């Protein structure tokens, strides 16, 4: 395993200090904690997110004016603990309550729910928006449900804008649930991620294989398929995403997200194919974003996210400017 690190078990601590010391005008660390918070927070509903590390820049990269109030960093691919989330909630609270944006994984849900209980014991009103945008896990009645993946950053962005404009906790919760319902993602991997403390990739693929329906935690995906040219991949992913909507969207926002190990060159080739397809389908693409936003350490692969932009306000929110490290 070749990585630029020191001791694997010190990675989170060293990374966290590296982040806050690199961008001290934007963020700070809440002392002795795993929480990165924005400087000079405004009087609004607090927005807290977080999860396992390994998805950088998510979530610390989205802390700042117009987006998150604070992010909690768990160990690699491991959800943070309730005591740390509680610290983030207390930091984010300016008297209007705190909204937790939680990706749908058992660990995240359990720990954030426990933190919500703790916050309520301190009389901080708290709500949870669960993000489950991944469409790859079928038959979710018999599983832990659909996963929360790259679409999460669009939830951060739109709710961040609404919170800044004075939306209440209840309004943000309701809006968040609607945004999630309108957001769909699917991912493919060419090569698995290597978790530093594990030292080897989570699964292995042949030279001509791709793992279809991967999540962002290095677990194997739902199905293995043969590598296809970007055009074919785009056709398959676009049709799967469109089919996942009850009503075919007329206007979309799209996000091509690199999993960490895939060059921008490939991401731009891919989005070129996606845009051509959507153009041929006469679907209006009103927002586009390309890059590494919700990674899986060094996984080679990408995910494609669609958001139905029927709501004009969401389009405005996505295009509004923010002051964060990574948006």
């Amino acid at each position, binding site marked *: 395993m070749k990585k630029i690190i020191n001791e694997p078990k010190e990675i989170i601590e060293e990374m966290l200090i590296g982040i806050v010391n690199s961008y001290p005008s934007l963020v700070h660390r809440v002392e002795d904690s795993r929480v990165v918070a924005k400087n000079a927070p405004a009087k609004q509903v607090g927005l807290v997110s977080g999860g396992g590390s390994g998805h950088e820049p998510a979530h610390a990269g989205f802390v700042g004016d117009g987006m998150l109030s604070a992010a909690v960093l768990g160990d690699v691919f491991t*959800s943070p*603990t309730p005591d740390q989330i509680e610290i983030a909630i207390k930091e984010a609270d300016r008297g209007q309550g705190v909204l937790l944006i939680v990706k749908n*994984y*058992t660990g995240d849900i*359990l720990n954030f729910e426990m933190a919500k209980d703790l916050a309520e014991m301190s009389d901080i009103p708290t709500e949870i928006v669960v993000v489950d945008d991944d469409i790859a896990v079928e038959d979710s009645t*018999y*599983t832990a449900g659909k996963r929360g993946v790259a679409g999460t950053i669009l939830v951060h962005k739109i709710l961040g804008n609404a919170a800044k404009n004075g939306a209440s906790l209840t309004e943000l919760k309701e809006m968040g649930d609607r945004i999630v319902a309108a957001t769909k993602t699917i991912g493919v991997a060419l090569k698995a991620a290597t*978790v530093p403390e*594990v030292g080897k990739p989570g699964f292995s693929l042949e030279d001509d294989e791709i793992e279809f329906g991967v999540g962002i935690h290095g677990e*194997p995906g739902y199905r293995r398929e043969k590598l296809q040219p970007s055009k074919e991949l785009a056709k398959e992913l676009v049709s799967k995403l469109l089919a996942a909507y009850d009503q075919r969207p007329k206007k979309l926002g799209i996000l091509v997200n690199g999993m960490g190990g895939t060059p921008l060159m490939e991401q731009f080739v891919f989005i070129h194919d996606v845009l051509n397809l959507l153009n041929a389908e006469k679907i209006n693409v009103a927002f586009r974003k390309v890059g590494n936003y919700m990674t899986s350490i060094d996984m080679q692969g990408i995910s494609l996210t669609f958001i139905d932009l029927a709501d004009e306000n969401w389009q405005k929110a996505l295009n509004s400017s923010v002051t964060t490290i990574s948006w």
Partner: protein
Amino acid sequence: MLVTVKEIQAWLSDYTEAIEKNKDYLSELDTPIGDGDHGNNMNRGMSEYQKAFEAKQPQTITETFKVLSMALISKVGGASGPLYGSAFMNLTKASKDLTEITSEKQLGDLFETGLSGIQARGKAVAGDKTMVDVWQPVVEQLKHSDLSKNNIEAAKEQTKDMQAKKGRASYLGERSIGHIDPGATSSALLFQSLLPYLN
């Protein structure tokens, strides 16, 4: 059988060692159907327990379970932290004022409160391919004075052919079949460490 705070603390100390020894194995089990970190997570939690134990010097069974529960909740993370943490939190409550356990049945009743904590949090039932698939049989075996190394092993082994309905393994659907569950394994280690103290 006589289990006092001494035996409980010796058991948990042995379990700490067992987790440390088996952490790579647990993470290996967590690789085909998870993200490969169960061993590291549990080891982090039990090391924290050891540190907290030395700092706090709990004197009773209930205090010991409380130190363990807090260590697991604040250091393990993932789903295992809240699930094991809730189990031992319930054990903390159920063992208030308890100074000795004199039968396997009494122990079974005690661990049953732990099992309810796990099921209340995680909502798993037997057959979902989780730690419940070891806790539930173990509770039954204790109630029938039937707890043995082989019975614990068998419960763990049975998770191999189950399709995961909960947790990260569930995203794999049928591909989760043929792999032993890591949470069931760390639970099997827990109860196997207990066996020497039941004679």
